[in-house]
Structures are given as structure tokens and as C-alpha cells.
């Protein structure tokens, strides 16, 4: 059930991690995000967290499809790529 998170260059710099982070616990999107949040917390990347979760302003894109906080129950088969993006357009 491993999934791969791919961060933008700037997010990776903020996190102090490489741009690709693989997590093993990901039966659902919510579980995968929680595993990533734990990794971020261990790395001291608190700027990317809010109340222990991934900061809600960070955009989550699963295999090319944008997802929201309402999609935490989305089942993952394993092997997905989850892009993490900054909301760079403002607006």
C-alpha cells in the first residue's frame, strides 16, 4: 500500500526532505496524509502542518486529480503518486 508524495521544490525545501517521500501506510488518502504528517513532524517541518495535519492550503492531487479534505476516505490501491502543490495563483 505504498504511495509516493511528490512535493514542489519549495515545499521540499521548507520540509527539509527530498521532493519524493514514500509512505507505507496508505489504505486511504487520509491514512497516507497522516503518515506524511508524521514524517513532517519528525523532520521538524512545522510550517507545513496545522494542528498536526498537513496544512489545508496545500493542494493535494492524486494521480492527476485534485482532491480536498472531504476525500480523506478515498481508497488507495498502492502505487499512487500524490502531488503536493502550493496555491500559487492566490485569488
Amino acid at each position, binding site marked *: 500500500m505504498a504511495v509516493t508524495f511528490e512535493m514542489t521544490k519549495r515545499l521540499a525545501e521548507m520540509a527539509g526532505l527530498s521532493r519524493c517521500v514514500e509512505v507505507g501506510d496508505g489504505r486511504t488518502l487520509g491514512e497516507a496524509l497522516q503518515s506524511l504528517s508524521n514524517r513532517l513532524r519528525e523532520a521538524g517541518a512545522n510550517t507545513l502542518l496545522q494542528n498536526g495535519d498537513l496544512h489545508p492550503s496545500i493542494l493535494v492531487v492524486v494521480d492527476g486529480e485534485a482532491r480536498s479534505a472531504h476525500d480523506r476516505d478515498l481508497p488507495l490501491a498502492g502505487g499512487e503518486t500524490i*502531488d503536493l502543490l*502550493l496555491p500559487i495563483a492566490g485569488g
Partner: protein
Amino acid sequence: MSNWIQSDLTPALEWRDVTLDLGEFAIRDVSLRLEPRTWMCVIGPTGAGKTLVLEIAAGFLRPTRGQVFRGGENITRVPPERRRIAYIPQDDLLFPHLDVRANLLYGSRGEREELEHRLHSVAADLRISHLLDRRVHVISGGEAQRVALGRGLLADADVLLLDECTSALDEETREIVGDFLLEQRSQREISVIHVTHDSAEAERLADVTVTMAAGRITRIETNDQGPGRGRSEPGAPAPLVLQVPQVSRKHSRNPQLGEKIWQ
């Protein structure tokens, strides 16, 4: 003698005693005012804190001390998507899962018909109309920068944050893009903060140039090309010109060159 006069107008953006320490990157006690319809360039060496100033304004980072105001409203705790500030970064310019059209429209609001009209107008100006239906991974770096600039101009925002977003362009193309953005600044009444390593570009585009080093503002200077010139002490508010700077292409060395480069 300077004719830059301290303003009583509400600044488009204001940082008040902002401090943030991320270890490798930090800014300390930054106080700065971006006056309405002003083009402010921020220069300084790598690690000076230039990008942090933009990212705090955009809302990606929250300062450990100090506050950020937009149009007089304290936005320090407002999430990025609600700030009405467009940010164009140096890297990762576009959303990889969207095509060019969707990237351009990301962050824009309004009636569909009006949005389509604006989309095609900006795309034509930036010479990217032929790219609208393409995936972003098949376009060039220069095209991606133009799409990102277009998205910033289409966003529901009147403050534009440019983080070395033309650095990959050659000098002549950068000059043309700068001229286009100056026109847009005038037409759309937007305020711009532009981080650049290129002091010549700052000299040509900026009304105000801010120099940073080691996380602090070391100089705030009006530009020779602006209506006046002056200098203030570090940390003091930037001066404001009471008349809106007149924008023209007169500084462009070769205006005709643009047509060739865009094509």
C-alpha cells in the same frame, strides 16, 4: 531633490516588524510598505530573505512575530486562497495536472463569458493562445513562464508577487515581458513586488528598490526612472509618489523585437 512624499493612503501591502526564522532562511524585523500601483523590486544576495518576504505576504508562511496588512486589513492569519494576492514563483510555475487553459483560469473569478474574453485577451498579449489546450509538460520553460504570468494577471488579485519568474528568459525577452507587465500594472491598477537578482532590471522597472541582506532591509531607494529619487533609513516605510507613475515603453531598447520573440 526628491518629490517622493510620505503617503497617508492605505498601502496595498504592509509588513510590520515581521520576523520568521526557519533556520537556513530567516527575516528579522522587516517593516515595509507597498504603496498602491507601485512596482517594488527587492534585490539582494541568495539567503537574504527575499523569497520569505513574498511567501509571508502570500500566506504560505506565518511570521513568528509581526503582522501583515493588505489594504489596511490584517491578513496575518488569512489563508493564501483568500488573500487576493497572486504569487508567481521561481520554480514549479504551473499545476502539472491541469492543461494551460485551466492553469490560466486557476484563481480567477467572474462570469464565464467575461472570463473567456479576458483569458483570450491575456493569452493573445502573451502569445500563448496556441498553447491553451496543451498539457504543461510539453511546453517550454519560457512558455511556462508566460503562462504563469498570465495566470497571475487573470487571478482575482490586485497585488502581484513575482519571484524571479523571468530569470530563465534571455535579456531581450525579459525586457519585453517587463514592458508588458508595466502596461498591465497601469491598465489594471495592480501593485507589484518583484524579487530579482538583476539590478539593471530593477533600475528599469521599479519605482522603489529594496535591498536585503542577512534577513534585514538595508536600503530603500526610489528609482532614477521614477518621478523622483530619495532614500530612507532601513526599516522606515517606503516613500510614495503622489502621482501614479507614468508607464511607457520609452525605456525599451528595441520595441519591435518583441514581435519576433513572441512568435
